[in-house]
């Protein structure tokens, strides 16, 4: 399907701008940056989940040959406007203020928290020296579990905190309790939902380069949000915006945690200024497990009231959310989870309380999906429970409750974290579910179940629906300039991290300006190239930066044709931009190059510009779109289970989805497939384990299992295109969609496979060991 039938480039697969360098290993990732005089940083990190620091002795470390500095917070504090990272997004729900320090000085609150920074000639020496820093601790009581954290008498994750309740928020509407009081049916679930880390293949890292001549600092940072990083660095180092440039080089995957501003960003940037030498820090994988933010545990206690036909009357419950030790972003993960929960369905009354609990673990912030997989899991578990209780087919009960297409746009009473109404802008959810069911041959499943039994396997099928909030505003900056060389330069505040952002913007701009992709240079994620920007998160960059690019390109096109019209004495309506030229339609030999047109308005000192055009060929746009656009889809999973070993194989997965018009079908599928793999990992493998002392147990990729090629099932992706009315291109975001319904669909399929045993899934991930325990318990009943 091509949603742009009249377009030259939109809706078509085009070669990626990013590939020629990456495929030869000629990309420039942050660790690839080398400079004369480069020094290397390593961080001393807490081995304890909770302890008071009684002393720090850096003498032995500082004495090691090749060491340039060993600094604690005491050393850095005189140079900092604030010793804490004040990054929490606003919310009235906070009960504790937990701004993390640049370096821990009196108390450590999670394993991996940085205490000192070492700068040395190379990383080998820096790590040797870090091991020589002697820190004495008094170990304190530990909070290792978010539910226990809120029990009376629990120790506190911070010794001076009155409790562990970080935030208390209720999202709801309608007469919930009245509905429950009179409803003929109700189902209840207690769920424990875990998600792990992002595990981009490239860990975090930065190189800070001082320029003593101009008293500036350039920070090459593998971040999703360069402009936010610059603002925070300016604030904390007491510098102004021209003194700090943050640039994202090629980024080896982001998936959420790279949008966070970290203590290491400050330590390394300040070290470069103090030493007047470039300083590099590259996170290793173990640090990624203990120092990069992650998602983790949520305990859901939820119930749903329905009528006799399975129509939802009300939902209520509580989520206890593991917030980790500090507020590194906000309460957006549990808020996103609860907000996503009812979205696909007509839910007349809804009330969910969120209790965010501090624990002595790594701070929690969004990972691809940002809570939405958990909310969808809870919703879909309730629907499966209701289907079971009422003896209604699982697809049918969803059909009865999905928001119908006739109701679009469908305004819900829910508000985003910014107070903006959640209005489902377009889509046909029942048709999308049907497309997925047909694609999965839902009705023909019983024969496959029977066949699997001949192989001594239990086969089940399950489904889950999701609606994803995408394209978070308020804006993204895009500027386009055609220079006298004739080349088109695009700059944006959007930040690329592997999702083909450069290709996407080049395509949108080229569509209006000649369709020659080789004539376009896109610069993403550079505060020197774009005066403002938000960056990469919330499946927003195609929607927000794409919309700005489209608007700017249309304006610039008009300007090019106006000027060319004056030069050629032809009406602009009779002109078109073809490749690097403006041509008279149908008379290709009557033409002017983009270079000539750009030169004609570049100006010569003392000479009048031609015509009425004014100077320069440029347009920039920061299109404001506050409302989010809502994508949707349905996953149908089939599993086979060996009840002797507990082994669960996902053998088939059909993903029917609607992300509005697809700019490039191949890129859409690529984004979805990555998300689906991530979702399968969350469903079956990925588990960030801690012991009862909050010591992390999974700190290598041998202990924490990512999906490999052999675990991937057959995946079929089916597309619908319901254009969004909120932007001119009709697009919706797709970067996170794949991950959202997978855990719920797999759980539904496992239930179905083991229905004869009465096993139901109430947690994610579900390991073979978990499954054997459930089977044993079921047999005992």
């Amino acid at each position: 399907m091509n949603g742009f039938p009249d377009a030259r480039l939109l809706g078509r697969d085009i070669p990626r701008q990013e590939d020629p360098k990456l495929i030869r290993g000629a990309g420039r990732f942050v660790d690839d940056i080398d400079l004369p005089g480069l020094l290397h940083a390593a961080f001393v990190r807490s081995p304890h989940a909770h302890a008071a620091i009684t002393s720090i002795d850096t003498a032995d470390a500082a004495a090691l040959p090749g060491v340039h500095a060993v600094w604690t917070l005491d050393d850095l504090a005189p140079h900092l406007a604030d010793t804490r990272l004040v990054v929490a997004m606003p919310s009235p729900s906070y009960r504790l203020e937990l701004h993390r320090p640049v370096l821990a000085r009196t108390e450590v609150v999670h394993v991996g928290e940085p205490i000192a920074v070492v700068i040395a000639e190379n990383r080998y020496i820096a790590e040797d020296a870090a091991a020589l820093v002697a820190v004495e601790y008094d170990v304190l009581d530990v909070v290792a579990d978010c539910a226990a954290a809120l029990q009376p008498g629990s120790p506190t994750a911070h010794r001076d905190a009155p409790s562990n309740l970080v935030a208390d928020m209720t999202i709801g509407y309608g007469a919930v309790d009245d509905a429950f009081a009179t409803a003929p049916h109700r189902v209840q679930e207690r769920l424990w939902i875990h998600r792990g880390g992002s595990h981009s293949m490239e860990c975090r890292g930065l190189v800070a380069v001082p320029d003593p001549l101009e008293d500036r600092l350039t920070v090459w940072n593998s971040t999703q949000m360069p402009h936010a990083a610059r603002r925070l660095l300016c604030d904390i180092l007491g510098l102004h915006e021209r003194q700090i440039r943050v640039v994202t080089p090629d980024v080896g995957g982001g998936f959420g945690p790279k949008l966070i501003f970290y203590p290491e960003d400050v330590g390394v940037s300040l070290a470069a200024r103090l030493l007047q030498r470039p300083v590099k820090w590259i996170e290793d994988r173990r640090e990624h497990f203990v120092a990069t933010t992650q998602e983790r545990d949520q305990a859901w206690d939820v119930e749903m009231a329905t009528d006799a036909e399975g129509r939802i009357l009300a939902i209520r419950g509580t989520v206890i959310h593991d917030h980790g030790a500090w507020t590194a972003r906000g309460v957006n993960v549990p808020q996103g989870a609860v907000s996503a929960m009812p979205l696909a369905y007509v839910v007349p009354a809804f009330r969910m309380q969120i209790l965010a609990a501090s624990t002595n673990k790594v701070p929690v912030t969004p990972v691809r999906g940002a809570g939405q997989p958990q909310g969808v899991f809870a919703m879909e578990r309730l629907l499966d429970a209701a289907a079971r209780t009422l003896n209604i087919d699982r697809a049918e009960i969803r059909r009865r409750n999905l928001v119908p297409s006739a109701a679009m746009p469908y305004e819900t009473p829910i508000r985003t974290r910014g107070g903006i109404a959640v209005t489902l802008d377009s889509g046909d959810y029942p048709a999308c579910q049907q497309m997925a069911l047909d694609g999965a041959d839902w009705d023909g499943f019983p024969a496959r179940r029977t066949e699997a039994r001949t192989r001594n396997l239990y086969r089940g099928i399950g489904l889950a629906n999701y609606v994803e909030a995408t394209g978070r505003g308020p804006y993204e900056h895009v500027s386009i300039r055609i220079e006298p060389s004739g080349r088109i330069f695009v700059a944006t505040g959007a930040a690329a991290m592997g999702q083909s952002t450069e290709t996407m913007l080049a395509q949108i701009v080229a569509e209006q300006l000649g369709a020659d992709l080789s004539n376009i240079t896109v610069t993403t994620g550079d505060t020197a190239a774009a005066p403002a920007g938000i960056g990469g998160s919330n499946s927003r960059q195609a929607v927000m930066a794409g919309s700005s690019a489209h608007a700017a390109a249309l304006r610039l096109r008009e300007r090019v044709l106006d000027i060319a019209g004056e030069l050629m004495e032809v009406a602009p309506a009779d002109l078109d931009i073809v490749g690097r030229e403006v041509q008279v339609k149908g008379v290709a030999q009557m033409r002017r190059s983009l270079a000539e047109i750009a030169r004609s308005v570049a100006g010569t000192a003392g000479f009048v510009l031609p015509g009425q055009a004014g100077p320069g060929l440029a347009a920039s746009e920061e299109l404001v779109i506050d409302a989010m656009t809502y994508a949707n889809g349905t996953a149908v999973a089939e599993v086979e289970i060996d009840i002797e070993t507990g082994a669960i194989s996902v053998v088939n997965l059909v993903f029917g989805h609607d992300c509005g018009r697809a700019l490039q079908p191949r890129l859409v599928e690529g984004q979805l497939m990555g998300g689906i793999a991530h979702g399968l990992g969350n469903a079956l493998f990925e588990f960030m384990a801690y012991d009862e002392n909050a010591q992390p147990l999974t700190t290598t990729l041998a202990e924490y299992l990512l999906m490999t090629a052999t675990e991937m099932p057959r995946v079929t992706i089916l597309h619908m295109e319901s254009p969004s009315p909120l932007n001119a291109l009709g697009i919706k975001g797709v970067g996170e969609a794949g991950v959202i319904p997978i855990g719920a669909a797999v759980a539904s399929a496992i239930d179905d496979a083991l229905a004869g045993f009465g096993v139901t899934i109430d947690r994610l991930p579900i390991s073979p060991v978990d499954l054997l325990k459930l089977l044993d318990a079921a047999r005992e009943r």
Partner: protein
Amino acid sequence: MTRKVTLTVNGTVRSASLPDRKTLADLLRQDLGLTGTHLGCETGLCGACTILLDGRAVRSCLMLAVQAEGHSIITVEGLAPSATELHPLQQAFCDEHALQCGFCTPGLLTTLVEFLHDVPDPSAAEIREAISGNLCRCTGYDTIVKATLSAAARMRAP
């Protein structure tokens, strides 16, 4: 301890003086400037740093540079026949959208060069097995398998 290491990299004899404990990956990246070989875990588990040592796929993060003395190494920078032409695997990766962020790609390419040398006409399942030690967080692997099948067919063509 510092000692001199001499080895052949992408067809050129190179040497460097370096400490005994320096890894082969760091030699390639830092001393020889071949930053196409990426480090994703430094524990031999992600496969991003895979290079070819005398034609065999090897994790350069798990090998000391001094152990490479006298050996011949091919990195991702040495796969393409020229500045204008790509190796069939590289071309197929681009054609099939088998890379997104591109960080794991060099290790996948080198792993697959060895594999297709040994198994020129593989099945999809054999390819999956061959790359099961290479982690990719972006693609979900399907396009990598497709690209490898297509490159294998091209490489078999007379």
